[in-house]
Every structure is written in C-alpha cells, then in structure tokens.
C-alpha cells in the first residue's frame, strides 16, 4: 500500500520532468527509422538490439545514480515516517525502473505495431528483444542505485563510476576479450572465455540476440564458443539465466546497503 503511494508520487514527478518522454521518443524514432530504411526484417531487429545494448545500460546506470541523488530530500522525509526501509527502497527503485522499462518497451513496440512488423513471423524474436531490454533496464538501474548508495555523499564519484562502468562493460570488455584471445590463442581457452562472457551482462544479452538470429558470422569468438558449447537453445537458456542471477546481485547489494545506511 505504502509502496504504491510512493510509486504514484515518483511517477507523477517523472512525468512532470518530461525527460522520460524524450527517452521513449529516442527508441520510437530509432526503431521507426530502422524499419523505414532497412525493411521489417531481422536486420532491423538486429540494429535495434545493438542500439538497445548500448543505450539501456548507459541510461540505467547514470540515471539510477542521479535519481537517487535527486530523491534525497524525499528519502530523508520518508525515513522519519513509520515506514519500513525495504518498502521505501522498492518504492524508489520501482519509481524509476518501471517508467524506464515502459519507455523502452513502448518506444520500440509502437513503430513495430503500426508497421505491421509485430504480428509477422518474427513475433518470438521481438518478444525476446523486449524481454532482454526489460532485464537490462532493471539490472542496470539496480547497478546505478548501488553506485548511488555507495557514494551517497559524493555525487561526482558515484556518477563517475557509473560512466566508467558503462564504458568498461559496453565497450572495453570486448576489446579485452579479443586481446586475451590474441595473446593466449595457442592454449585451450574456450572454457575460461565462456566464464568471461558470463561476467558481463551486456555480452550475455548480445549473445542471446545473436543466437536467436543465428548469425554465426557476427557472433564473434565468445558467441561461437557459446553456440558450440550449449547449442542455440540451451545457450540462450544459460545466457538468460545468468542474466537473471546478474539482476539479483546489484539489487541485493543495494537493499543491504540501504538498510544499514545512516542518513
């Protein structure tokens, strides 16, 4: 009940801020443009997933931390009320994660609907894409929250770590994997590589997409290993399960921290 009251207020506040509409609009424009120029085939879906893999972690992490800093007064006000800290945490988290997820899903889905793409044979792929986006949003908002709480007094540090974290996971990680392969190529490194992939949720999402579209040429080293090791179906199951474990981690860390914090 109380969590709902908090959610309700936070959503109103987000809508008042209007930027959430901008975020949805980005997906809408990109999806629309990609479908318009690339046709309603798997190519468009693949391009959309590439955009999503970059944008969702960035926005989730940065805004997760920023939002926590912005809600500081709100948090302090409510902590003095007869309210469980757990309720307050989920109210705050849901206040951001739900609108972000909704913005992504609506922004991507609408152009697919009015272009008639959604009800084609790709419906399974589209749904997978949306679910992946949803998990990524929840996951990276959680990481943003965790960072925001860990550096509650030092906003610059919190946001800095969020930005560097994104750069590392979304961009540098692949380079490091390639470098490892290049250096240790003569050794049997398939299994360590597999483990390395599991450590990066963005990689896991990417591989899931690639396995779904079965594009071996684009799969890269880790994707190919994944495919060979698990096969398409079990590979996807494994990747999504690992992502869900990933999702639990920052949320567990953040709730634990929030429960023990001094305000």
């Amino acid at each position, binding site marked *: *009940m*109380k969590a709902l*009251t*908090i959610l309700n*207020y936070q959503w109103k*506040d987000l809508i*008042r801020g209007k930027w959430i509409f901008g975020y949805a609009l980005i997906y809408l424009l990109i999806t629309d443009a990609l479908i318009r120029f690339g046709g309603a085939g798997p190519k468009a879906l693949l391009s959309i997933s590439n955009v999503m893999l970059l944008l969702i972690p960035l926005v989730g992490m940065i805004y997760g931390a920023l939002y926590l800093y912005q*809600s*500081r*007064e*709100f948090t*302090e*006000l*409510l*902590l*003095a*009320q*007869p*309210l*469980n*800290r757990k309720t307050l945490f989920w109210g705050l988290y849901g206040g951001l994660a739900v609108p972000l997820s909704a913005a992504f899903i609506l922004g991507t889905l609408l152009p697919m609907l009015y272009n008639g793409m959604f009800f084609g044979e790709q419906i399974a792929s589209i749904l997978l894409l949306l679910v992946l986006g949803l998990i990524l949003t929840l996951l990276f908002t959680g990481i943003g929250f965790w960072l925001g709480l860990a550096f509650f007094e030092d906003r610059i540090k919190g946001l800095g770590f969020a930005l560097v974290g994104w750069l590392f996971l979304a961009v540098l990680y692949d380079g490091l994997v390639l470098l490892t392969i290049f250096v240790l190529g003569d050794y049997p490194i398939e299994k360590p590589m597999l483990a390395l992939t599991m450590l990066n949720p963005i990689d896991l999402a990417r591989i899931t997409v690639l396995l779904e579209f079965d594009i071996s040429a684009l799969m890269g080293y880790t994707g190919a290993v994944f495919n060979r090791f698990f096969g398409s179906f079990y590979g996807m199951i494994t990747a999504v399960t690992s992502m869900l474990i990933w999702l639990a981690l920052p949320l567990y860390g953040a709730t634990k921290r929030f429960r*023990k*914090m*001094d*305000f």
Partner: protein
Amino acid sequence: MIELKGLKKNFGRLTVLDDLDLEIPSGQATGIVGPNGSGKTTTIKSILGLVKPTEGEIRIDGELVNNRWEYREKIGYMPQVARYPENMTVEELFQFIKNIRGDQPSNEEELIKHFGLESELKKRMRTLSGGNRQKVGAVLSMMFNPDILIFDEPTAGLDPRSSVQFKKKVRELKDQGKTIMLTTHIMSEIEELADHLIFIVEGKIKYHGPMDELLNEHKEQRLEGAVAKMMEEEAA
C-alpha cells in the same frame, strides 16, 4: 519514556556517541544542549532510526526499537535542516504524508492556521523561504498528534513572531502531556520550555537532571551562565 543504553556511534574512525546512557521521562520537556558537533543531532537521529547505532539499545516505552519502524507512528520529528521534495506544493506534501500514514486523523488545518501558512499552500517547496519551510516542518511533526515530539533546533531561521507562536504551541503540547525533546543553542528557549536539561560534550553526557537543580548548583541566575561555565570547565 525514551531510554538509551550504551549507545555508541562511529562514523569511520570518528566516535560521535560514546557509550551514551539516557532516560527521557514521559510527559515532560527535555532540552539537549552542547557545543557544535557534540552529537545532539546524531542522538536524535538514532532514536528515529535514521542513523544506525554501532552498539547499544534504544527503548521507547520499554520496547526495543532498534531496526524497527512501526514505533515511528508515535513520533513527530522536525529536522534541523528541513529538506523536502522540491516539486511538491505545500498542500501536496501534507496530503502525501497523510497517504503514507494511511489517513490517520490529522489536525493540519488548525496548525496551518496557527503558523499562518494559508497563503503558502499552493506554492512549491522550492519557492518557499527558509522560515516557511521550518513552519511546514513544524506542522508535519505535529499534525498526527504524536505522543513524542522531537525538535532539532526548531526556532533557528524563524522570525521572532513565528518563534513565539512555535513556543506557544510547544507549551500547549506540554500541557497535553506529550513527551518533548528539543535541541537548541538558545538558552532562553530551554529556560522557557524545558523541565530537564541534558548537556552533551563529545558524545558523552556531562549533565542530566532537572533544570532548577543545575541553576542551584552553579548559583547562577541564568541558565546561559551555567551552561557557559560547564563548557568552559570542559575545555579546561
């Protein structure tokens, strides 16, 4: 009654509260004084559960309240630096807190009148002056008619007229038999309002007792002199 037993709080290496034992009697007003940074606010925040004590027990009416939250229903709190969601109007803020409290009966209309906030109701919190924010905080702390009221430097930032109004309200609450706790640097306020005095230095209690005893002991006419003397003795 609020009881603190062996309360300790460290912020990193810094010890803010050092084995604090304290009893705050029901139905009376207790004033907490002490130099800046002596741990007054940390004590209050520990009672409210905003700060998690490193060690020690906090009991309210005999019930252990560490890590609990239901007990805050009995407490009204007015923070030192009142910070509220900037985008809410005063009216919305009151309504929101009422929703959070599950529509407990509240007497906010009377309080709004008492503090003269009628003309501010439609304004957003961010446009409010510091003094008016304090008044909003005062209304929030009193509107659910709690048994325990905690004020952290309540009159800092209030103009003389509002300050008098506030003190009048506190006396009313005292007459109703509420337990009141307040910190301040203004000694005349303590003289006017408090029955008990607690003097904290560096997280330790240096004096705890009825006001009149302290005044007799130090043979000072005014509290200000007595407290200043204690602070000097501390420094020496």
